[in-house]
């Protein structure tokens, strides 16, 4: 099984979720993160002075799928939905999952997804 972790721009979450669901992915877990990268931090104002915020708000979407095929489908869906073309659109990282359990039923691996 494969785990896809995508760090995206927060306001793209809704689109990414819909794209994944449209691609047949039935579950995902998201979290709020902050990102540091080529996208220069933006400058904010505080008490009459500017300063740079280096960590920008991002959302991480985690999806576990049963096969490489599904991983490619998910990657493709995320790429299209999260794309704006401006720096900071984010990254997708894929890794292996050796074992999965659904807590409610005890089902394992493919069946647990």
């Amino acid at each position, binding site marked *: 099984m494969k785990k896809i972790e995508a760090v995206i721009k927060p306001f793209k979450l809704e689109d990414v979720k819909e794209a994944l669901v449209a691609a047949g992915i039935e579950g995902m877990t998201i979290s709020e993160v902050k990102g540091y990268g080529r996208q220069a931090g933006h400058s*904010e*104002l*505080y*008490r*009459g*002075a*500017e*300063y740079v915020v280096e960590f920008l708000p991002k959302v991480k979407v985690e999806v576990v799928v049963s096969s490489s095929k599904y991983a490619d489908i998910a990657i493709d869906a995320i790429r299209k939905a999260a794309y704006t073309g401006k720096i900071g659109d984010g990254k997708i990282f894929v890794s292996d999952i050796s074992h999965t359990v659904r807590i409610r039923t005890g089902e394992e691996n493919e069946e647990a997804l």
Partner: protein
Amino acid sequence: MEINYVIDTFFSIFTMVLIILMVPGFAMLEAGLVRTKNVTSVLTVNVMIYALASMSFLLIGYTYAFGGWDHQDSINKYAFFLFQMAFVGKVVNIMSGGVSERSRILPLALFTIVVGAFLYPTIVNITWGANFLSGTVLDISAMHDLAGSTVIHSTGGWALLAAILIMGPRRGRYKKSGAIQAIPASSIPLVTLGAFLLWIGWFGFNGGSVGAISSRENADAVALTIMNTNTAGLAGAITGWLLTYFRYKKFDITMILNGALGGLVAITAGPDLYDIYTPILIGAIGGTLVVLFVPLFDKLRMDDPVGALSVHLVNGIWGTLAVGIFTSDVSLMTQLKGVVVVGAIVFPLAYVIIFTINKFFSLRAADDEQQEGIDYVECGMEAYPEFKRSI
């Protein structure tokens, strides 16, 4: 007449209540301006200041300032006391706000007691009170300072200046590289709420300082005072806004509100003396001073998380001098003398007191304590321990 006694007592209670709104006002303003890890301790300090300063003033300071309980009989003596008591905590608030995020609570409590029992009453004594300097060359009772540009705001400001010099900046604020680390406010809604509560409290602060409302002249003086107070606040806010906006093309609510507070401090010495347009100028200069001095103090490496030096000290001085400049009855020299004498008394006294307290009780929290946050170290209580609905 009895009816005047009644109405003026009522009026005094009304304005006292408005000033007490400044207690949550300062608390919310400062809690909003510091980082989350210091919010609980800042709130604790604010509660403690109200309790200790008021109690010290009740038990010791008041009679020292005014020479006893029965020095006037136009209003009820306890109503008079309450109105005066409502002021005392403000002096400490000014100082404590400016050393937020790096000060320990118990030493602040000690300082509060000294201010409430002794330091602030000394200044009241020589200005509005019994006046032990009467007849000496230092007599400044001729200074016109209706509601305390000097007596309250500069006094608090001088104490803060001493504290900042002794304690140094917050850990990490000024980097070795010379860069200044911005430390943004944790909650803008609390800052805004606090600033408006202060603003509203100011109507009582200044309006009540007229001392009576029960004659036509008094009523006129009170209305003019509140009118001018508000106008200076408006002008300070607008100036704070425009100056920041023209520089950065952004709206900086912290400077708008600080500008308003600067204008309010500046008008406090003489709102009863001006026509209704002069306060626009006085408040606008007040707002400008805040915009100029906040970065200036930062350049001098004087770390003041809430901008209290610029708002209270600088504008306290400006406001007192303004009375000499813009009115014909009061001379600039008299005002200047008042400013200087008060500074010359408060600054060294505060310096010695804070230095001693810091020596024996270590007012400044150690660097690693600041890193952990004062809340954890001193209170063992987080301001917002959970955030999402479920943990």
